[in-house]
């Protein structure tokens, strides 16, 4: 699926390796990921990979010099106008190497295909129909000398129509305005910065911004911060950093963190390709899954509808006081370790569904069951993560209340609440992606599967504990307990990530 997305005509996309020097970013890569934790209660910072990975966050404009540098080089080496160079580079993902290779193979074909042949070879511009009176083909008004313009292709239009044409391109086409061609029907000459400068200087800046945006998007080493309305760019120092799973960038402007490789939320322990498959699957299955997973559940005892609006999976029915697990609807009493039972909710047991039936329908049903098993848990943690995030926003006021409620307590005495909550968000996130990971695990390696599920189970259990603790009313909250739980759960989180990271040995 993802392989098909790249259909580059000239070279094997996959094999293409960026050399050490050329297409790499040219800046002094100073590691800017600093870990700020003055708070002694703070959970140690989270990412295993992704710290000190050399990823730089900078405003989009900082990339302009880099873009100019490449343009200049291509302009000089190929001896073509800068405007043509920008079109050619854009068509080759801003990779000089790739462009040169194709250029030297068949420059004529390339220039024609990219719509810059006239620009690079202005000797024989096609003139517009000589019979044509001096009439602008857009507004049908007569064109006065000096009030008309043509690109190197020779098609003339009046200045005012050129202006409107450029303005229209920006406003209607948006980012793809950089691909706009000559207004003349079937002419493939590409409109460039030069024309914008002459005909629509009021839109030049916007055009340049789109050009830069194109540079960022097609560049292998850069990625826009996915934060809403954020214009920061994450730049990796080398191509390999863009390929290494789990490289996380943290935006210093909107504080979004994201995977450098795929742009999604950091998704350890699952891999980018699994996550992409999973998201695709969830999109396809969403209707089935939604139908099955109504937002509410009935209490298994008294059947009153219950909406889960809190983070913890331990549900107590308001009506009959029955305690049960939100995920499996089983009695909560069979879940805690202290009652001798085990927290079985993370484990998909194919034996629980009938396996003798090998008809296609039964297989499909088993597969759906398997998917739903993981999806339900993924979804539950995803919702819990959202809730924990919301709670995190309210934490500050809770901290103030807590501080005021006891005499002599300092801000640092209540900061544990925030730390716990941050930890909770992080754990929910990791838990969410453990189910993606587990879904794509080799089902035949039972030992690995069991061990992974053990780690998952521990993390889940202690996350639920912490969730419950941190939601307690302030007067019933035990600070030491919360601090300890936070530490413990952090440990389990790191354990599972480490376990996967080290190739699930031992």
């Amino acid at each position: 699926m993802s392989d098909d997305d790249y259909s580059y005509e000239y070279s094997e996309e996959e094999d293409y390796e960026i050399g050490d020097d050329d297409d790499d970013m040219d800046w002094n890569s100073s590691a800017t990921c600093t870990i700020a934790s003055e708070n002694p209660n703070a959970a140690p910072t989270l990412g295993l990979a992704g710290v000190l990975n050399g990823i730089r966050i900078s405003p989009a404009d900082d990339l302009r010099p880099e873009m100019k540098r490449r343009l200049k080089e291509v302009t000089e080496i190929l001896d073509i106008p800068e405007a043509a160079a920008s079109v050619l580079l854009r068509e080759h993902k801003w990779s000089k190497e790739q462009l040169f290779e194709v250029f030297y193979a068949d420059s004529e074909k390339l220039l024609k295909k990219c719509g810059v042949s006239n620009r690079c070879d202005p000797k024989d511009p096609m003139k517009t129909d000589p019979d044509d009176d001096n009439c602008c083909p857009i507004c049908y008004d007569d064109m006065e000398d000096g009030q008309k313009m043509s690109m190197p292709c020779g098609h003339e239009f009046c200045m005012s129509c050129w202006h409107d044409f450029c303005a229209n391109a920006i406003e209607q086409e948006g980012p793809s305005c950089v691909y706009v061609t000559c207004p003349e029907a079937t002419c493939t000459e590409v409109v460039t910065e030069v024309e914008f400068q002459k005909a629509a200087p009021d839109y030049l800046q916007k055009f340049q911004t789109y050009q830069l945006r194109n540079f960022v998007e097609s560049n292998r080493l850069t990625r826009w911060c996915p934060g809403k309305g954020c214009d920061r760019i994450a730049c990796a120092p080398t191509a390999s950093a863009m390929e290494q799973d789990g490289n996380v960038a943290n935006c210093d402007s909107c504080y979004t963190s994201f995977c450098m490789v795929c742009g999604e939320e950091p998704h350890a322990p699952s891999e980018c390709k699994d996550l992409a498959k999973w998201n695709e699957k969830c999109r396809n299955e969403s209707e089935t899954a939604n139908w099955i997973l109504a937002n509410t559940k009935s209490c298994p005892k008294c059947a009153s509808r219950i909406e889960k609006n809190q983070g913890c999976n331990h549900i107590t029915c308001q009506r009959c006081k029955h305690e049960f697990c939100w995920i499996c609807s089983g009695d909560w009493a069979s879940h805690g370790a202290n009652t001798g039972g085990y927290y079985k909710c993370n484990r998909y047991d194919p034996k629980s569904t009938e396996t003798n039936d090998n008809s296609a329908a039964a297989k499909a049903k088993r597969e759906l069951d398997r998917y739903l098993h993981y999806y339900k848990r993924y979804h539950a943690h995803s919702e819990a993560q959202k809730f924990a995030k919301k709670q995190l926003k309210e934490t500050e006021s809770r901290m103030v209340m807590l501080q005021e409620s006891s005499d002599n307590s300092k801000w640092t005495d209540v900061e544990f609440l925030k730390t716990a909550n941050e930890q909770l968000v992080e754990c929910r996130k990791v838990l969410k992606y453990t189910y993606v990971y587990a879904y794509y695990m080799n089902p035949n390696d039972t030992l690995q599967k069991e061990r992974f599920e053990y780690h998952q189970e521990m993390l889940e259990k202690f996350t639920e504990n912490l969730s419950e603790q941190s939601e307690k009313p302030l007067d019933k909250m035990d600070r030491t307990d919360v601090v300890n739980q936070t530490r413990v759960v952090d440990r389990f989180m790191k354990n599972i990530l480490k376990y996967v990271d080290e190739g699930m040995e031992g």
Partner: protein
Amino acid sequence: MSLNLAAAKRLRKELQNLKRTKEPDPDIYLIPDGNNILQWTALLRGPSDTPYSGGVFQLAIDCGADYPLAPPSITFVTRVFHPNVHFRTGDVCLDILKKEWSPAWGVQAACRAILALLSDPDADSPLNCDAGNMIRGGDMLAYNTTARMFTVENAMFLAWPSTATTTDKEG
């Protein structure tokens, strides 16, 4: 505002050119709406050697304020069975009316393109899947007879107007 004026001005000139021309296109009749120059009605003669032959098809042409920078929107008013025309809404799927539009084109050029589309359907991007499937399946007999049937049923009622504004008699 100014864009709207530009569109109206340009369309008035197109109208002028249509009236002035020595050789009007015998297969296309164009007339703007009495009080809105941005809206036109077109009549097309179904091309001979096609199942549309002998029919007169009415189109509604709607030019936006940003015409001619943006293409006009053209729909069939007469029901037609054709892979690139929506059977119910009459929408036309034609690249020059979308991405490939050039402001150097006008309403008449757009109508010519639609005539060409009637002669040469593109079954690979169908708005009418039934018609598309017939052609893709190689069942030209089915396509021709169905399209013919709808032509006879729907497109045989409009008389071709005698060009009222000039003394020209159409041939």
